[in-house]
């Protein structure tokens, strides 16, 4: 590969950066993936879960809301520095805040997709959350969480990867229960970690 030509066509102050980009790479089709960060805060999740507040809320809607909040908590990296839930691994693994910002952003973006689909399912559920449109949204949220796990595999290693995938597994299983109408919400099993 002869990078001189491409470097000569770039802005002079960007050439060192481009050298690093070019180093050791082969051509791959260009990829531009865009994620909306909208509604990724826990506060936004509470607001989304509040869709059930003005209607007769079923156990499954409450469970779906808890899952939505748990996804937001995972995205907010609430476990970093905070006390772990009794069921969390010991020692407490680092949260997103210990990852490089670029990786944090990518992971949070993927979780945002799952969170949005959960919120849409709550909306479609219209106080029931077991109807087919709602279940369809929840299933899609589960798939987005699976993609999150794949992303973690690509971007992370070691304990943090195991921790994040473990939390995602927990959420995926919970969504599976929700889709099957097993909505034993006890208000605690999905709270991955607690703020104090």
């Amino acid at each position, binding site marked *: 590969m002869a990078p001189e030509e491409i470097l000569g066509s770039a802005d002079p102050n960007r050439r060192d950066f481009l050298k690093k980009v070019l180093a050791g790479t082969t*051509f791959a089709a*260009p990829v531009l993936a865009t994620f909306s960060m909208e509604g990724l805060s826990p506060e936004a999740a509470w607001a989304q879960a509040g869709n059930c507040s003005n209607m007769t809320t079923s156990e499954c809607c409450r469970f779906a809301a808890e899952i939505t909040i748990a996804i937001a908590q995972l995205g907010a990296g609430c476990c970093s520095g905070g006390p772990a839930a009794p069921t969390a691994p010991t020692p407490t693994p680092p949260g997103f805040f210990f990852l490089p910002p670029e990786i944090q952003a990518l992971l949070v973006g993927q979780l945002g997709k799952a969170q949005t689909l959960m919120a849409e399912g709550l909306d479609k559920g219209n106080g029931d959350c077991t109807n087919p449109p709602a279940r369809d949204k929840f299933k899609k949220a589960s798939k987005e969480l699976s993609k999150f796990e794949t992303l973690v595999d690509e971007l992370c290693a070691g304990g943090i990867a195991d921790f994040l995938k473990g939390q995602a597994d927990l959420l995926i299983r919970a969504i599976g229960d929700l889709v099957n109408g097993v909505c034993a919400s006890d208000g605690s099993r999905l709270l991955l970690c607690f703020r104090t």
Partner: protein
Amino acid sequence: MIYRPDTDRVHYLNHTAVLILELSNGRNTPARIATLLKNAYGLPEAPEHDVNETLLKMADEGLIRRASPGRPRPRNATRTQRRP
């Protein structure tokens, strides 16, 4: 990775997309960018289609904009420029 606070959107680019973005400096046409990629990676053909599609996506997302209008140019010769 690009985060745009004004739109609250995160853009992930692989290395080829980064090169395309960096070469969108107002001096290179899409065809030129494709040729540069071809030469850099020893490709049999210039990936013009990939480059054009990526530039369109970047423009849609506001990552690049068309260079200041001067003389009308054919579409495939339109220069693009990264947003400041």
